């Protein structure tokens, strides 16, 4: 357990000291939110209607930032060999690294969502729902992305490949994330229903993602 926490702490320290991690994902998120109105026009009524979609697509794409280096950096410099030699099972290693990635990517995205919601003229209830749904849903994005990151850890140009592999698998999370946001500002289904499904998705992908990533990392030699 102490090894797990030490690994989380190390990864947090690395991502906070080197650029990237938290700040890059946030900036990328802000850029997507900014770009969309340029494409569809500054009509606030229209923007507020599609705001959950913009925020969620932004979050999905921003999660990919930093994911390509999640395991690749350690595979390149030999740290992965070292991690395999510890008593912490590879599943524990994956979980620790995913947790650190989420703390520096998904969590800031969720916390910044209400602020970016302002740009899209969201109602207060919608902003709260967006933040809550991102808080519950972004771990699932990290876990799915981790599988792609593990499979490309030994490949030089894995970055785009991760996006191609992970994005289709992220569709369910996107569906229920946006559904939760829409339910909060009106609609026929209660807010709790899509949110509960989103939570279930996160739990399922936590299991699949951790086992899948660990299996992927075992292939890297």
């Amino acid at each position: 357990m102490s090894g797990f926490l030490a690994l989380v702490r190390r990864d947090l320290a690395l991502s906070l000291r080197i650029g990237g991690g938290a700040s890059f994902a946030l900036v990328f998120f802000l850029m997507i939110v900014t770009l969309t109105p340029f494409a569809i026009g500054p009509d606030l009524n229209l923007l507020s209607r599609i705001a959950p979609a913009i925020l969620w697509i932004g979050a999905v794409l921003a999660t990919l930032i930093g994911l390509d280096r999640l395991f690749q950096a350690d595979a390149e410099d030999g740290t992965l060999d070292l991690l395999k030699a510890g008593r912490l099972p590879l599943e524990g290693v994956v979980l620790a690294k995913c947790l650190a990635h989420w703390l520096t990517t998904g969590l800031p995205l969720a916390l910044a969502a209400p602020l970016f919601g302002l740009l899209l003229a969201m109602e207060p209830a919608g902003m709260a729902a967006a933040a809550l749904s991102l808080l519950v849903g972004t771990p699932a994005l990290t876990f799915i992305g981790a599988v792609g990151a593990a499979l490309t850890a030994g490949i030089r140009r894995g970055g785009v490949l991760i996006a191609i592999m992970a994005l289709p698998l992220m569709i369910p999370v996107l569906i229920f994330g946006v559904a939760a946001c829409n339910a909060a500002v009106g609609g026929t289904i209660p807010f709790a229903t899509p949110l509960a499904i989103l939570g279930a998705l996160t739990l399922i992908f936590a299991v699949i993602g951790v086992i899948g990533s660990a299996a992927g990392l075992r292939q890297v030699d």
Partner: protein
Amino acid sequence: MRVSGGEGCCLRQSRMISTLPDPCILTARDLACRRNERSLFTGLSFAVSGGSGLALTGPNGVGKTSLLRVLAGLLRAEAGTVSIAPALPDLDLPQRSVFVSSRDPLKGALTVRELLAGWQAIVFAGEGGSVDGALQAFDLAALAGVPCAYLSSGQRRRVSLARLKLSSSANRPVWLLDEPTNALDAAARSRLAAVVGDHLAAGGMVVAATHDPLGWPDLAALDLGAHVAGRQAKAALA
């Protein structure tokens, strides 16, 4: 110490030293390894017992690094087995050896002390080594506060090797070193020789892949190139 291999395997007798009550032995039986559709070596068997070491030599591409990775449990051999006796429950090859590859797993943003403390907490927790001991052993105390990004290649190599002292010889009796003296100056080489000497005296084992003569005592030599050539000649005859 006994080394038995296929034809052409260089064999040299050396003393048996062991301070452990229960002498360890690393045994490789009939190992075969294949990389990228190319067979590297087949039918390789040898044993290294506590207190002695093995120097792997041979030309580039003959499979020295692959053999070390097989011994470390990081690469699956195509055939054959590797075992460390006595076997311990729950601990497999990777957990009973320290493998120092030719790459330096350093993180530029961390200081030397942070890096070693991280390895100790994540990989070698409760195995009887210490960060200060590791810093001392490789003369790194003065560099403890320096970020790894600023180190020269010799210094990086020493930090890399310092992990050997983060565990104890009893916990991880097998040391697997890939070109350990690369980029090291004379002073650092003698430091490494002393650390290896202590490990052997405590009943540990060392397998090192090398191009240079290491000058360590109790070191048998296994010429992987000659082994492969011998096997090929035999196959051609048959």
